[in-house]
């Protein structure tokens, strides 16, 4: 029943800790202009705009999409704003795809962004609430006990997190847009990185970035007429579960497993490890790579860490993960999910430059947010679904 939809344009900003050289509008336009150029379209060609970002306290502007209308040539068009916490970049891409798949629009521009250096990100992410629990642990403190549980349950050796970190930071050196360009990481150096929230080390932790990612999504007729590369949306899926309830499994949340199973079913994929050629998954703390590999069905339970150790997820491995450098190298919160979805599309489109994997026919994009409770995923492919 759904109309076909393809990504025909991708554009992102130079991500870094502080883009003092541009306004919020300038940051967004940098990504948007590149996406439009990539799609060989102009602003006037766009039918609808879908914007995603995380809490507005990060920039101090409430519902900035209202103000950005002029900058996005959006007057007279539908503008839509998604906010689903950390997964927002991914869910925004899905909502944008639905604008096309519903048959309502033909050319949809979507952008995820965060200019978090404008505000105080640490404050904005955990504004102290009265009557709430005293915050003793900071951001990483929420996830590190979960990681500890995974390590204990799976028997993973302690260097796995560092292996992922070295891989992602090295991959980022092949991505000119990535925030962190740190070419000298070795496993030995990583294991000496300071422990922040035991068992999570500094090198295993994502940065705080300013950045934006934009995609142009098109209906089948528009995509067919487009003479540039394209990535067909094969399937999308989203799932949510509550933050906290008695007995909740946060190592492999059920919402993650249900979302992945739904996605594979819709995409007609029976063996993800065999049928997916490149993965962009949301790994803000390195240990989440082995955890998500298992949760998503790429690796059997308690074997995700073995994939890492065996080099399966290296660029040259059987299942390259985060060749872009991932969230570990670039994390503008509102954009990160769309970066994953967009980088997956880039792999299929063959436009990932130095971090391009050979012969990618199908790629997987993944985003998650909140207390590992919101999940958004898609499969994109070279062929029509």
């Amino acid at each position, binding site marked *: 029943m759904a109309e076909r939809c393809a990504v025909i344009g991708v554009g992102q900003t130079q991500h870094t800790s502080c883009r003092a050289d541009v306004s919020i509008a300038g940051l967004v336009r940098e990504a948007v202009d590149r996406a439009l150029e990539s799609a060989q379209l102009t602003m006037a060609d766009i039918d609808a705009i879908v914007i995603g970002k995380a809490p507005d306290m990060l920039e101090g502007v409430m519902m900035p999409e209202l103000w950005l209308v002029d900058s996005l040539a959006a007057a007279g068009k539908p503008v839509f704003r998604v906010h689903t916490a950390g997964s927002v970049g991914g869910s925004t891409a899905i909502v944008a795809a639905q604008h096309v798949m519903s048959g309502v629009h033909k050319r949809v521009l979507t952008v995820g962004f965060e200019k978090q250096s404008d505000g105080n990100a*640490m404050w904005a992410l955990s504004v102290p609430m009265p009557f709430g629990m005293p915050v003793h642990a*900071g951001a990483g403190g929420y996830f590190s*006990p979960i990681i500890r549980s995974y390590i204990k349950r799976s028997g993973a050796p302690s260097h796995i997190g560092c292996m992922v970190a070295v891989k992602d930071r090295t991959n980022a050196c092949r991505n000119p847009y990535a925030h962190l360009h740190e070419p000298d990481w070795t496993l030995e150096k990583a294991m000496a990185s300071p422990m922040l*929230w*035991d068992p999570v080390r*500094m090198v295993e932790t994502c940065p705080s970035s300013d950045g934006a990612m934009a995609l142009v999504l098109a209906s089948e007729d528009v995509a067919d007429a487009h003479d540039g590369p394209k990535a067909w949306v094969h399937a999308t899926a989203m799932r949510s579960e*509550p933050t906290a309830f*008695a007995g909740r499994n946060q190592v492999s949340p059920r919402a993650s497993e249900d979302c992945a199973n739904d996605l594979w079913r819709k995409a007609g994929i029976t063996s993800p490890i065999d049928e997916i050629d490149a993965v962009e998954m949301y790994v803000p703390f390195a240990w989440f790579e082995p955890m998500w590999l298992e949760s998503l069905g790429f690796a059997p339970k308690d074997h995700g860490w073995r994939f890492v150790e065996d080099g399966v997820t290296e660029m040259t491995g059987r299942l390259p993960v985060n060749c872009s450098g991932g969230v570990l190298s670039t994390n503008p919160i509102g954009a990160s999910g769309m970066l994953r979805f967009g980088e997956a599309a880039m792999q299929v489109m063959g436009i990932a430059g130095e971090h391009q994997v050979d012969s990618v026919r199908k790629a997987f994009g993944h985003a998650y947010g909140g207390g590992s409770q919101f999940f958004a995923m898609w499969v994109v492919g070279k062929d029509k679904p």
Partner: protein
Amino acid sequence: MSDDVLRIRTPISIKYQYSAGPRVSSHLLGLMDGRFVGKRCPVCELVYMPPRNGTCAKCGALLGEDVEVGQRGTITTFCVVNVPFLGQTIKIPYVSATILLDGADMGMQHLIQEVDAADVRMGMRVEPVWRPREEWQPSLENVMHFRPTGEPDAPFESYAGHL
């Protein structure tokens, strides 16, 4: 017009009023009395301490009867904090743990002190150390931290479902 004007600092100040709501309020009043008062879900009958949002998120139901839990509990998982951050007042490294109070069905977060960080382990039995009564507020900060009781560790099965 100066070419150097690239940034503008615009302070924002907004006053908000927050309400704990009736259900969380009974928990907070318990803290004013040195007690851990949780609430039971009328649908699944599990006990939440603290009664987050006054709701059982699994059932989508408003929590019901008050249930006192603790004072003692078991550490189900923890992390050793080694990073300075905004608002931190305790000397690093220190342990932040999830503690399953006796009688509760979901853990709560708090500090662990009076033990070396390296000696903290899953299953450790702990008890609260309260501030002086005259300092009490409607807040879990009435408890300065939890410390080991010295009891033998709780068996894994007793908290395995809460990891």
